[in-house]
């Protein structure tokens, strides 16, 4: 299996504050990889560096073997990295299909082709019944799928999902998990920031843990969740060292 993404010693400083420190990990092609960690650990900052919204203060980012450190967001999208945002940002004045078409236009110049592609993607994520509805009228679950659809329409090789499950109730989560699995089955590698542990356990083959800006663990989810360093990061140093996080629970 080849490496889709390699993050090497990436650091991000904001004046005196170090948000991310010497983070290194890889994402294998065709995998669903998780990036977890307590709030404020620096996960979204890491995402914004990988997707070209910020440049690292130090370190390298390699995408499919090529150094893309500091390359701008729109160029990375063209190269095959797409991302969703933690706080969903639909194009308010447009309909659902018009929203998705903006993503489709990256690879399709003609309006008709872009709209056709948009419809196809909407089908794939389960939005086919609301194509012409204004994006502003969607529920939270609908907007999450819209974020997904827009990013997918750019035909990425690597999809960065920033807490795509946040704000969804258990049945909505249950409905969207197969969508994510289908995306992977379609050949897209996924790197997801997530707090919903049940989903992380069931979706991700590999999980990396970021705490206070540093990667402190990495491996299969079941293993990582038993790691005492990970437990300490989530619960604080007073937590019993031997405590294990039961499967399905949210730490």
């Amino acid at each position, binding site marked *: 299996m080849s490496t889709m993404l390699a993050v090497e010693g990436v650091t991000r400083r904001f004046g005196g504050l170090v948000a991310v420190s010497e983070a290194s990990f890889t994402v294998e092609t065709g995998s669903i990889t998780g990036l977890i960690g307590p709030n404020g650990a620096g996960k979204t900052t890491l995402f914004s560096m990988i*997707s070209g*919204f910020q440049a690292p203060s130090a370190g390298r980012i390699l995408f499919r073997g090529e150094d893309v450190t500091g390359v*701008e*967001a*729109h*160029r990375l*999208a*063209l190269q095959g990295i*797409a*991302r*969703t*945002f933690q706080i969903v*940002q*639909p*194009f*308010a*004045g*447009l309909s659902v299909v*018009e929203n998705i*078409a*903006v*993503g489709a*236009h*990256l690879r*399709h*110049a*003609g*309006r008709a082709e*872009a709209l056709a592609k948009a419809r196809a993607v909407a089908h794939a994520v389960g939005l086919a019944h609301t194509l012409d509805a204004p994006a502003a009228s969607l529920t939270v679950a609908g907007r999450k799928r819209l974020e997904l659809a*827009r*990013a997918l*329409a*750019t035909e990425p090789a690597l999809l960065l999902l920033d807490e795509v499950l946040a704000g969804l109730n258990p049945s909505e989560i249950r409905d969207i998990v197969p969508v994510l699995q289908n995306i992977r089955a379609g050949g897209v590698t996924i790197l997801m920031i997530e707090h919903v542990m049940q989903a992380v356990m069931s979706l991700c083959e590999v999980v990396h843990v970021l705490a206070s800006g540093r990667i402190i663990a990495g491996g299969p989810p079941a293993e990582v969740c038993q790691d005492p360093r990970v437990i300490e990061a989530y619960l604080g140093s007073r937590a019993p060292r031997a405590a294990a996080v039961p499967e399905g629970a949210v730490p």
Partner: protein
Amino acid sequence: MTTKDWPTLLIVVAIALVPLATSANTVLNFLVFTLIIALAAQGWNILGGYGGQFSFGHAAFFGTGAYVTAILQVRLGVNGWAGFALGIAAGALIGAIIGYLSFRSGLRGSYFALVTLAFAEVLRVVANAAPVTGGAAGLLVRLEPGAANFQFENRAVFVWIALALVAGVLVLTRRMEQSRFGAQLVAVRENEEAARALGVDALATKLKAITLSAAVTAAAGALYVQYFLYVDAGLAFGTWISVEALLAAMAGGKGTVLGPLVGALTLHSLGEVTKAFAGRVPGIDLVIFGLVLVAVVAFAPDGLMGLARRLRGRMRRKAVASEAAA
């Protein structure tokens, strides 16, 4: 062409027929002037309506088109048509420069509006003092009627030329709406960050928009000079045209194809009515314009076209409801 385009076609044809129905100078004058404003507003609409970047200094482009064609004709004896084309090109260049400086620095919203205002004022001050522009006295283009000179004795011809330009931009705008550029421009307007994540080069998109916008408004300025044969700093770069372009687009419906034309016609008709009632009081029509702007923002932010769309939607819903009840 779809059913959506019938109203546009109707309005254009209706205006085209007016010079055949009357040769009254006041009417034809009104039409030419209003169409020039509409053209300037169409330019503003591309950047402000579709692009979401409100410029308060579109006079910079209007004036560039006006002065370049005036200077070329008066000082260098260049042909009127060539001057017109070069005026548009110059306007596009100024647009690209102002756009590059402003957008590269990340200026948006109020700051962008302010800087465009400042650029227009700088040009006005310079044009008022520089010898090449005739300084405070301005420039008079020699009256030489003839199709080859882009001057016509018959005002009707000017009406049709202005109308042709407006109609051309109507088509251009419609095409833009249906294009990749249009979709990307609107995306940048709605949410620049999300657009960038989808591969849209926000800076390039905004630059294209302002260049196109400036070219169209410059055409209006150049046409103004051909019709009135006179230009000075206040007419070319004054805030009056920045306001007219913005207001017509807003009142008619920003971000729509027909908005600027509808807005210009409505506002200027309103202005004429006001002047007729209020007599010779100077500025009274502009007081109305100012209040209209406030009213539009308060009650009808999508302008007349938005109101029309809401009305159509309500009528459609009523039709469906009454059908269901029957």
